[in-house]
């Protein structure tokens, strides 16, 4: 009995072991080794000795890093916000439809999420390109003056926000829609019988009932945008100047342009600290049995 139970325990552990080893080796251990290397001078991967908290001190005293964090938060929050609001509107609308139409809308909505960030961004870069891109053609046709987006700081930031939101509207739409499908129709009807109008039904019944998918997709989108380096790298390259130099780009440059891996490690630790807040929220929000 006892031996059998032990074997039983052992088997479950054994089954999860190979996969867990890979996950721990690649997602967990490197974080600790980076924490360690953030206390060293590591230019060009040459160990320049222990420097204590000097890497962190140099990051905190650099106004460019502060600006970078600030613009990242602005872009992250704005694009996730736009994406959540539009996703909610689309989801509420498709919820009234059934069958093929609803399914097709979901597929079209998810399109920007499934194509690679590289391809999606390159395609937008071409549409927004220079003076004679497709966007400026439309602007001229409609009687507006053309805009050379990537030479204007504000336009670059706004464009980055819009492209990031564009990527993710479908995701929030699908998540929220799944939540809406689970809402009991009887509950909504009961509220209507009691005299609630559409707005009250939405804010007092529907929204509270789909809190989980809304929060989960907000977390995922926030993390996805905060950590996104592909879209800024391809779309604006951080420019003009440093206007869109988000923290993930700064991290990439610090490592792979300037080879300051000690400082880059320290910055990675800071970025990870932001992420861990969202990861903890995610683990607490998602529904599972264990």
């Amino acid at each position: 009995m006892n031996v059998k139970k032990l074997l039983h325990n052992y088997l479950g552990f054994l089954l999860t072991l190979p996969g867990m080893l890979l996950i721990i080796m690649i997602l967990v251990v490197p974080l600790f080794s980076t924490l360690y290397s953030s206390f060293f001078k590591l230019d060009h991967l040459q160990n320049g000795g222990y420097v204590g908290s000097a890497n962190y001190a140099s990051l905190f005293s650099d106004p460019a890093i502060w600006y970078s964090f600030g613009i990242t938060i602005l872009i992250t929050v704005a694009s996730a916000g736009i994406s959540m609001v539009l996703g909610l509107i689309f989801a509420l609308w498709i919820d009234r439809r059934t069958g093929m139409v609803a399914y097709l809308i979901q597929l079209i909505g998810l399109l920007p999420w499934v194509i690679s960030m590289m391809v999606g961004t390159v395609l937008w870069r071409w549409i927004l390109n220079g003076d004679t891109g497709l966007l400026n053609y439309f602007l001229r046709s409609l009687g507006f003056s053309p805009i050379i987006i990537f030479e204007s700081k504000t336009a670059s930031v706004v464009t980055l926000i819009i492209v990031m939101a564009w990527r993710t509207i479908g995701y929030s739409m699908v998540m929220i829609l799944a939540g809406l499908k689970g809402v009991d129709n009887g509950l909504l009807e009961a509220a209507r019988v009691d005299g609630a109008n559409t707005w009250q039904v939405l804010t007092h019944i529907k929204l509270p009932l789909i809190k989980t998918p809304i929060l989960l997709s907000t977390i995922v989108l926030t993390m996805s945008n905060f950590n996104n380096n592909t879209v800024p790298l391809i779309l604006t390259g951080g420019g003009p100047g440093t206007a869109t130099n988000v923290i993930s780009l700064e991290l990439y440059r610090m490592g792979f342009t300037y080879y300051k891996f000690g400082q880059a490690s320290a910055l990675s630790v800071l970025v990870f600290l932001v992420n861990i807040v969202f990861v903890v929220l995610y683990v607490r929000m998602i529904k599972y049995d264990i």
Partner: protein
Amino acid sequence: MIFKNTKKNGIKITGNGDIKQGASLLELALLLVLFFTNSTPILWGLITSLKTRREILVYPPRFINFTFSWEHYQNVFDNGLGLGMRNSLLYAGCTIVLGLILGLLAAYGFERYSFPLKKILFYIVIAGIPLSIGSAAMLIPNYLYMMNLGLTNKWYTLILLYTAYNLPMAIWIMKGGIEAIPLEIEDAARIDGCSRAYIITRLIPRLCLPSIASSALFLFIGAWNEFITAAVMIDSPNLRSIQLVIYYFRGFFGTDWGGLMASAMVAVLPILLVFSVLGKLMVSGLTQGAVKG
């Protein structure tokens, strides 16, 4: 009394015609906007990729009446896109196989057994799902780590990383699939003399096929689309993934948007094919855990 009431309401709502009314003008406009913003970049890219070099720069742009030409596709395939495709197919294929095997075993272990450390291990799996979505925080850690182990710039480098990044999602989806299989089926199989190995490797996979397909889809998309990790880990031109090849085309061709669009179209084609066939599985995989059930 209350019960009767709710039941009546339930009937009323299913017969309620005005909930599924015809599309209003606003709805139609919304649909058009969604369709327009999501498909225009791809369609415009496709049109551009099929134009001649000179016509791409013609202003105002031509939408239909252009000279059809394959020259950009010819050009990008002559300059390494084929190799990038082959590499990416290898990376994605191996990621799917490795991810499904490791994922199914782990999912079965988590779902059907209790063992020490189970809780903490499963927390790591769940935490891994959002963590590997955006990998800026992981970029430097993984680079330094793989560098130390001498594992960068090998044919298996990206396979290992992509499997690890997408494995939490795969475990999560397949665990949901196995959860839905009644224990009685396994018990019956055991009574009939099936070994535990047979149950895990033959019976269970057959019974949770949709969740396996869904995991495979996520593994494929994750491996095929990833760019920044590949950019950091791979130096050798022979090992470049397709996204990396596109990236280097940017510099290589300078302002040759035709070539860039052609390579983007080639990279997006497998995704569109797989997604249009298996889109439903993608939706179910994405939303698992967001709703009770």
